[in-house]
């Protein structure tokens, strides 16, 4: 009896780790390949290899010497951070209203917010361009922060509304009895409880803003205000038709590393399961 049990357990463990391995390999392989490519140069780029054959950091040097890449990196950090902070701030408060206060037309309002996400981004480009010029924020980071709310806000509002709806009513009532105003309930009671959801949505929104290309290309015109995806598109080879693969891959690696670091920093928060304990639904 005991022996079969152990055998079964071992199989399960092995299968589980095999699954983990597959997931990791599939996720990381293209990125690994990008790193590999970023270390190659010249005709080597066209040869398939699985391990680094020769290592040259030329491409990385190129990335930082062409244009204003460090500046672009900084712009991206600024734009994405502010976008996320703004979106989370607006969304946390709005989703409190949408999930915790009963009022007429709530469903309709949620649908309207969602409807914003239904229009192809490409189609709002012209109209948005007009608004941004009207507001006088053209070619500034604010233009992008403003434009990005069009996709971060509906998303964060919806996700946070869903999560906030699931928080136990009695916790909120206890806070009310303790004399907490809605603002205090949100900031001191709900937000700590929603860390996993906040960090997750924040992270997803951050990456979405970080990676956005079309708006960034349209609403900024100088190297000093552009963000990383545009900067990558601006990386060029020696002539019109030449695509500088090595440099592009090097830039992608440079751009992706901060995000991976970000995830590593926040990943504890993602799973800080606060569920056991005082909360009971």
């Amino acid at each position: 009896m005991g022996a079969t049990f152990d055998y079964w357990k071992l199989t399960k463990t092995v299968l589980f780790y095999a699954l983990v391995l597959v997931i990791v390999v599939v996720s990381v392989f293209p990125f690994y390949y990008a790193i590999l490519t970023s270390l190659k140069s010249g005709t080597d780029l066209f040869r398939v290899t699985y391990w680094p054959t020769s290592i040259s950091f030329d491409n990385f040097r190129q990335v930082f010497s062409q244009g204003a890449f460090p500046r672009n990196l900084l712009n991206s950090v600024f734009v994405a951070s502010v976008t996320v902070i703004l979106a989370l701030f607006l969304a946390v408060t709005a989703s409190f209203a949408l999930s915790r206060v009963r009022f007429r037309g709530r469903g309709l309002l949620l649908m309207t917010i969602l409807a914003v996400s239904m229009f192809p981004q490409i189609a709002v480009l012209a109209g948005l361009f007009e608004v941004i010029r009207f507001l006088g924020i053209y070619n500034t980071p604010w233009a992008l922060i403003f434009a990005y709310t069009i996709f971060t806000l509906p998303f964060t509002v919806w996700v946070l509304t869903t999560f906030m709806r699931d928080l136990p009513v009695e916790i909120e009532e206890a806070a009310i009895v303790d004399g907490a105003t809605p603002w205090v309930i949100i900031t001191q009671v709900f937000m700590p409880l929603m860390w996993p959801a906040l960090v997750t949505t924040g992270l997803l929104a951050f990456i979405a803003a970080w990676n956005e290309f079309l708006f960034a290309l349209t609403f900024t015109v100088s190297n000093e205000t552009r963000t990383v995806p545009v900067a990558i598109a601006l990386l060029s080879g020696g002539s019109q038709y030449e695509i500088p693969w090595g440099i592009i891959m090097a830039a992608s690696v440079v751009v992706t590393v901060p995000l991976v670091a970000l995830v590593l920093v926040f990943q504890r928060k993602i799973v800080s399961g606060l569920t056991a304990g005082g909360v009971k639904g």
Partner: protein
Amino acid sequence: MASIELRNIRKSFGAVNVIKGVDLEVRKGEFMVFVGPSGCGKSTLLRLISGLEDITSGEMLFDGKVVNALTPSKRGIAMVFQSYALYPHMTVYENMAFGLKLEKGNSKEAIRERVEKAADMLQIRQYLDRLPKQLSGGQRQRVAIGRAITRDPKVFLFDEPLSNLDAALRVATRIEIAKLHEGMHDVTMIYVTHDQVEAMTLADRICVLRDGLVEQVGTPMELYEKPDSIFVAGFIGSPKMNFLTGEKAEAFKCATLGVRGEHMLVKPDGIWEGEVIHTENLGADTYVYLEMGQEEPIVVRLEGAMQHPSGSKLRVSPMEDRVHRFDEAGKPIR
């Protein structure tokens, strides 16, 4: 420290009327228990008193002042929830101090002093730095009570605080609450439960609710001895009161005859005969269930361990002066 008066209080959720006009007075320093079957509106009534729920119509007075519009914190209430509702991300200390911190004008030292005083009262001082998830159910409930005490409320509200605890803890905590009440004489307490034992043991007065209306208010003994209706009679007391109808009731000139199990006497010349269908031996006493042609079996409570094999016949008589007679409408005939 506050008397509470409810005047024709009504509450509806949309088209559903939950509280249908309740008049009630809770005296200063009194321990009032709301009891009733689930869905009777007892929790809603508590929440109306707390201010968490909007009153649809009627007036609520604390110390003679209308408080319909006041927020819970301004009413000076504290509440203990069924699920404890502790803030999971705060330590026990922070949980207890949260309300005080939100009140303006409390110094850090004052807060600490009050929290520690409450903690000592409940013997949870050693847990002050722990998170709720590191505590057992009973400890959590004490923290919840401690949180309420710290706020120094005029009115203390309990919403079925013991129902998430196991039987042993339930009794222990019940005693704890009773002691608490003794120690805080001037605080008005309102306690909601569906368990009549809790109601009987804790209450100064009990308010039996049924279907959104007050059925009877009185001390536990009043309710036990002089129930105002079949409903109250059946709800209060354990084992449940026996109800006899038909010929057996007519013999006592009533529509329904109520006799508690402990008021039945086994005698060879008993006026009723029944067949034993089941015996529950509790050690100190024994419940014997008799089939007597009534809707439900008749319970007889006997002191000590007794043996009555199933199928045997038993003759019983009610104590004449302890029977409850009810008319057709379920009202007592006195």
